[in-house]
């Protein structure tokens, strides 16, 4: 009897809550109909004054190291000493996680990749950045400034951090002919079936689109992040055909390192930093930039719209984009630094050459992660593009089909 009464109470309570939620929900209607104008309000006018004592940092793993991973890898402690801002760091594993954490609030700065930046900007979660208040910005490579993924109408929304390409990794023992095309991973009759990997995120659809862009010109793909429905369906079809030869997809970089090291994965997309880790005990994998080029990332440090620590946030932006910290982070993570002067400070004098730090033809073939939206990011106005939410749904569907 007692249980039955409890169940009835719960039923009534849920009905009441439903009604309440319904009433509460309708109120916020007007605020969500989005205008296309860049939101976020005005940038900080400055001047950057005394710090607030703390800054809450959301970072890709390896972007904000305080010595806890490796005692010699530390550019956060010197920051704290220099500015008096205590850094509270949280790492995230994927761009989607970063956006979700920013939505939940409480973070001051975030290292956002291009597939997150526009979501953050138009989701009204970040503010424009006054680059005049960030002295290090002057030394940032011009090729990283005012890009479609870090600015709106010439207004920067963050400070560039660094860039890199998603490489094609191959096991040096098992894959004897060096692959020069992403086609090796899309071959349904691949001799490496079951040992091929793909990146476990909707943004991986762009990798398929890039391959189609170079091999199927009749589709007319100009930008792998601006796909109309026909182009999008073609990319999904390619990934569906690829699925049988995939051993596992990786979203967590540790999983990718483990798989490459053990040889359960011998071919597929990866990051330079994963290759470095996997080869820590002797070379097992190598990475190449295939002839089609590659997708890649160009990360941007952004400031939360509702930050309470604006001065510490700007101090962090200037610190991480400054030559010393930028050289350390670039070398630790394995990517090209954003700051030109960082190249003189890396422990490996050839580092910037290896990672193609300078602007140049290498980057012409790298398509940085961007946030697909209904308004095509390649500027086409005669068609609607498939927005990223649909990419996510299609990816879920593909992964479970």
């Amino acid at each position, binding site marked *: 009897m007692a249980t039955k009464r409890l169940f009835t109470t719960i039923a009534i*309570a849920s009905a009441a*809550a439903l009604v309440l939620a319904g009433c509460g929900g309708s109120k916020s209607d007007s605020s969500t109909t989005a205008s296309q104008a860049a939101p976020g309000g005005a940038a900080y006018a400055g001047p950057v004054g005394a710090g607030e004592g703390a800054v809450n940092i959301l970072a890709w793993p390896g972007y904000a190291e305080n010595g806890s991973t490796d005692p010699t890898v530390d550019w956060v402690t010197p920051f704290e000493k220099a500015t008096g801002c205590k850094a509270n760091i949280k790492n995230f594993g994927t761009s989607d996680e970063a956006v979700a954490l920013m939505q939940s609030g409480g973070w001051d700065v975030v290292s956002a990749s291009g597939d997150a930046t526009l979501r953050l900007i138009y989701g009204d979660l970040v503010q424009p950045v006054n680059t005049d208040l960030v002295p290090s910005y002057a030394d940032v490579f011009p090729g990283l400034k005012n890009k479609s993924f870090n600015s709106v109408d010439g207004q920067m929304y963050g400070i560039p951090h660094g860039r890199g390409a998603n490489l094609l990794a191959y096991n040096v023992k098992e894959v004897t002919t060096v692959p020069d095309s992403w086609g090796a991973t899309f071959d349904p009759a691949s001799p490496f079936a079951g040992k091929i990997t793909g990146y476990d995120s909707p943004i991986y659809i762009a990798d398929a689109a890039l391959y189609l862009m170079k091999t199927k010109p009749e589709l007319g793909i100009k930008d792998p992040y601006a796909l109309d429905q026909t182009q999008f369906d073609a990319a999904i079809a390619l990934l569906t055909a690829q699925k049988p030869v995939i051993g596992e997809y990786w979203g967590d970089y540790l999983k990718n390192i483990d798989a490459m090291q053990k040889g359960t994965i011998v071919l597929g997309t990866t990051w330079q930093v994963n290759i470095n880790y996997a080869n820590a005990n002797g070379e097992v994998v190598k990475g190449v930039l295939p002839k089609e080029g590659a997708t890649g990332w160009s990360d941007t440090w952004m400031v939360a719209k509702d930050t309470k620590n604006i001065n510490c946030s700007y101090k962090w932006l200037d610190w991480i984009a400054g030559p010393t910290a930028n050289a350390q982070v670039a070398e630790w993570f394995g990517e090209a630094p954003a700051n030109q002067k960082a190249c003189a400070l890396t422990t490996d004098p050839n580092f910037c050459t290896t990672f193609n730090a300078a602007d140049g033809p290498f980057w012409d073939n790298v398509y940085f992660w961007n946030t697909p939206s209904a308004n095509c990011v390649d500027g086409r106005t005669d068609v609607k593009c498939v927005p990223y939410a649909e990419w996510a749904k299609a990816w*879920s569907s593909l992964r479970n089909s």
Partner: protein
Amino acid sequence: MMSNLDRISARRDVRRAASLLAAPLLWLLGIYIGALAILFLTSFYTVDSFTNQVIHEFTFQNFIDVFTDHAYLNATLRTLGVAVSVTLVCAFLAIPMAFYMARIASPARRPFLVALVLTPLWASYLVKVYSWRTMLTPESGVIAWLLHPFDVQSPGYGIVGVIITLSYLWLPYMVLPIYSGLERLPSSLLDASADLGASTLQTMRDVVLPNVKPAVIAGSVFTFSLSLGDYITVQIVGGKNQMLGNVVYQNFSLNLPFAAAVASIPVVIMVVYLAMIRRTGALENL
């Protein structure tokens, strides 16, 4: 006949009880039930394709998408299959373990055995799952090595790996209720069964099992619901498989209403499951 004084103290008791219960009740109704209700309500909304923010416009589209795309049916069946398998494996392993702990081991050693069963819970979830990933490595893992003499291949990364790993993770939640159920079983029942000439197997089947059934069902609520909601293990040892939780995780920041629609599936499954077992009286064993 109640005196005035009694009446006052009774009223005071009610008031005290109300003030004591207010916070937990508010928690239950507001945070727990309320959140579920909002989740369900959200699943009828849609999102702005540009900002990905929720628009409060009523639509069935999310549920239509969930039910017409066979991928989500696959995910549901796969998740359900994993949850049922994990529950069966756990029950199969836990019954003999708990029986030994509660009836055969000397009373002095019982607390020690309970502590042993609990020790895996002290380690981090991720550490345990990654350990299983290492053990399950196809060809070179320790499981492949163990199975090699029998000419059996390691299950490798896949659904079997997920079931093994989750069974390991949730086993303590099955052992404990069965252990306490068996501990409460009067010895006289077992003695009577033996005196009447029943064999050990008969006693097991006709006396012990019916008596621990509510405890097993209570344990299954844990193993079943924990497996139903898990989405990390399958990413690490599941090969290219996904479960319902992964679909929710992948979509919630971009398309919250669609994620909410998918998230309603396990909630409905759990409600049906709880309604089914409510009759057995097992809920009192939790």
